């Protein structure tokens, strides 16, 4: 089974996109549900996206500095 790590909605007043600041984890890492996966940035806010499920992290699709849209898949957990 695979689960996508996506950028969650940031709110009605917030931008529809955010920038990857850095990944806390690497491909191949075992992650637990709720663990911080990636730090992201909007203009004046930094926030972390948690793992939606536990498993092995496969396929990080976006790198530091990339801009990601809300709902976009950033990585896969297997």
């Amino acid at each position, binding site marked *: 089974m695979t689960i996508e790590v996506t950028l969650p*909605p*940031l*709110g*009605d*007043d*917030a*931008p529809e996109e955010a920038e990857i*600041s850095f990944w806390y984890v690497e491909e191949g890492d075992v992650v637990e549900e*709720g663990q*911080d996966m990636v*730090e992201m*940035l*909007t*203009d*004046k*806010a*930094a*926030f*972390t996206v*948690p793992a939606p499920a536990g498993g092995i992290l496969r396929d990080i699709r976006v790198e530091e500095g990339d801009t990601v849209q809300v709902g976009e898949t950033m990585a896969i957990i297997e």
Partner: protein
Amino acid sequence: MTDHPSLRVIAMRGAGYDAVYRRQLELRERCIESGGLENYLMVVEHLPVITVGRRGGIEDVLLSRERLAEKGIELVETNRGGMVTFHGPGQLVLYPIIDLKRRGRDLHRYLRELESWLVNVCIEYGVAAHTAPPHTGVWVENRKIASIGIAVRRWVAYHGVALNVSTDLSYFDMIVPCGLREAQMTSLQQECGLSLTCEEVAERAVPGFRNAFGFLS
């Protein structure tokens, strides 16, 4: 414990940046673990420190680390949003560590709420402060009086706002504040012509926060 979110005010003065930061992280985790029921407002007056936010670059710090050290100014990278800023004596720094899940899970609505709270604090002193979209922060005409930079984990916000009360504004000449080369900084004291301390402004800002954010105790 009740089911209503509570707000505890925690004052910290004269501590180094790192001690205040570690306290924030500790309170953030407590807020997360309480399911957002235990919220905090840290009231801080920092020792002189230049902080580089996640979007900031060291090129916006105009003096070397050595020169800053000679002047007794710390230089730290920190994990809030935004660029470079200064904190120090005479500046009222407020770090609300609060649950945003109950506030509509909206990162930027929260920024707007912080702004409007600070605008009202300034207005209480007769200072015609306002916001200046698309910039974040609070301004008096074209002079910046308060800066905002936040971080969020599990929808619990930390870091926060810095309101210049009687700050020695020459410190801001050592940086490009918030990446705004043209920005002129100001303070509440300079704008209203009264001699003010952070303590007395906090006495208004804290109840103002409870009101604005619905922590009526």
